[in-house]
């Protein structure tokens, strides 16, 4: 394979190596002394499509399994059972790791490949524990067949628990919920809630189900009882009619990753879900931070006038939002004054949790937090690890698991 003429840290394409790509990140880790405190990444990814033949083995339904495996070529990177999105995350090859990833070598017969690659970037970046999520399956919420969403996400969850989480103390996950089916959603929490490495459950936000529907209350109650957080993960959907008016991927990405979380957050707060389940912890992933003060101001302002339409609330919408957790990435950094204000209004020192989104194109390093001039050392350590340690009950304390040597 030929790529642009460069010597890419003297890597030939055949030997693409994350450690070399992230050499500058390793240097940052050492310069900033990350060996002094743990770092937890609450939103990172792997490419489950590359393990699809293994995952499909976990499908229960023999007919669906035959359909899925027959349409997947041997060692296929993808299966036609999985819906795909139109999009250009790799920016036309400008982010070469998208195309080169499959050339990266991992030690044969030892650690599972997804886990080996994940721990490789975690060490380079200085991350101790990563909450790991899939990639193409973020779009499964708009699969036209609800039964496929259920079957495939159950197969994925089983595969992840057995092949990865059971063996890796540094990898945990909030498992996919097939939210288009409220009963299956509830069953998933029952089935997987106590598995090793499961620290919560995930709703991929790109879907068309209102979170306040009565059918979900039993799931929220169960999660609250089990002490497991629920997380909403943003993504985009260019086939959405509104997003379909946008002609460039930059616009679809910038708005799409916030859009569905705005809808879910509005329904969550205005329908008083936090009053019904006061101990249920809620996390918002991959929408950045700039939308939060917008939502706080917008809904506080309207609530003061239209209080009768949100009778379940006992305080301002923003007060409920201040009880929630916010993952930092992709953190908008072009106006430091606005960022500082945003961190103030969300009580970042206790509510903000660092996320990298690695290996996706808009990942954030821990230095995006650690280098902020307006945060105290205590706040930095809380955001980078302490808050997530408490949120997920990881019991890390001051333990460092990443190799920052």
């Amino acid at each position, binding site marked *: 394979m030929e790529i642009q003429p460069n010597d890419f840290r003297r890597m030939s394409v055949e030997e693409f190596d994350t450690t070399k*790509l992230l050499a*500058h990140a390793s240097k940052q880790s050492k310069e900033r002394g990350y060996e002094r405190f743990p770092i937890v990444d609450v939103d990172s990814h792997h490419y489950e499509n590359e393990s699809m033949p293994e995952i499909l083995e976990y499908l229960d339904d023999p007919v669906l399994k035959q359909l899925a495996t027959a349409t997947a070529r041997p060692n296929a990177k993808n299966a036609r059972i999985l819906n795909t999105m139109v999009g250009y995350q790799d920016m036309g*090859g*400008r982010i070469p790791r998208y195309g080169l990833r499959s050339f990266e070598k991992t030690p044969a017969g030892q650690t599972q490949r997804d886990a080996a690659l994940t721990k490789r970037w975690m060490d380079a970046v200085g991350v101790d524990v990563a909450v790991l999520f899939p990639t193409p399956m973020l779009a499964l919420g708009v699969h036209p067949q609800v039964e496929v969403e259920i079957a495939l996400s159950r197969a994925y969850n089983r595969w992840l628990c057995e092949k990865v989480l059971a063996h890796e103390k540094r990898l945990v996950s909030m498992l996919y919920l097939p939210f288009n089916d409220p009963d299956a959603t509830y069953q998933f929490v029952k089935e997987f809630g106590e598995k090793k490495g499961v620290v919560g459950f995930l709703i991929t936000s790109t879907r068309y189900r209102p979170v306040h529907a009565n059918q979900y209350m039993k799931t929220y109650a169960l999660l609250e009882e089990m002490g497991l957080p629920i997380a909403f993960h943003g993504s985009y959907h260019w086939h959405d009619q509104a997003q379909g008016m946008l002609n460039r991927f930059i616009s679809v990405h910038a708005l799409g990753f916030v859009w569905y979380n705005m809808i879910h957050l509005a329904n969550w707060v205005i329908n008083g879900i936090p009053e019904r389940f006061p101990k249920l912890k809620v996390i918002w992933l991959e929408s950045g931070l700039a939308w939060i003060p917008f939502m706080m101001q917008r809904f506080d302002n309207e609530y003061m006038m239209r209080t009768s339409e949100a009778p379940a609330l006992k305080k301002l919408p923003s007060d409920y939002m201040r009880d929630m957790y916010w993952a930092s990435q992709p953190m908008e950094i072009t106006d430091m004054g606005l960022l500082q204000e945003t961190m103030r209004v969300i009580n970042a020192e206790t509510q903000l949790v660092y996320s990298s989104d690695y290996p996706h194109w808009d990942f954030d390093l821990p*230095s*995006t937090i650690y280098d902020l001039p307006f945060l105290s050392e205590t706040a930095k350590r809380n955001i980078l690890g302490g808050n997530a340690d408490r949120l997920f009950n990881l019991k890390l304390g001051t333990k460092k698991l990443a190799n920052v040597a």
Partner: protein
Amino acid sequence: MPEVFVSRIDDFAEGDRRIVFHGGLEIGVFHWQGTYYAYENQCLHQGGPCCEGVIMHKVEDVLAPDKTWLGQRFSADEAHFVCPWHGYEYDIRTGECVGNRKLRLKSFEVLRRGDDLYVVAS
């Protein structure tokens, strides 16, 4: 002023680049359309190895005289190198970040000494 060897001139093809190291400093040297350019290999975004990314010609919108949009093309003369971490683009001739030209990479002087090229690492 430390002069750091980059390459023999004959070995440094048009369109190619080298990364040279001096102490903790990394410098990307480009050979582009007959000229050599050298910039610090430290992205202004999150510190990525910006000089190690792909080289792409600038993308341009094509408008008709009546301001209607006709399509896109690659610039015939402006080229960018793109940081491989997140895609910040830099003008290969100036080191300016093309998304905001107020931002510019530190540049270094490139010297020819006989058959060899050096960069002044200071």
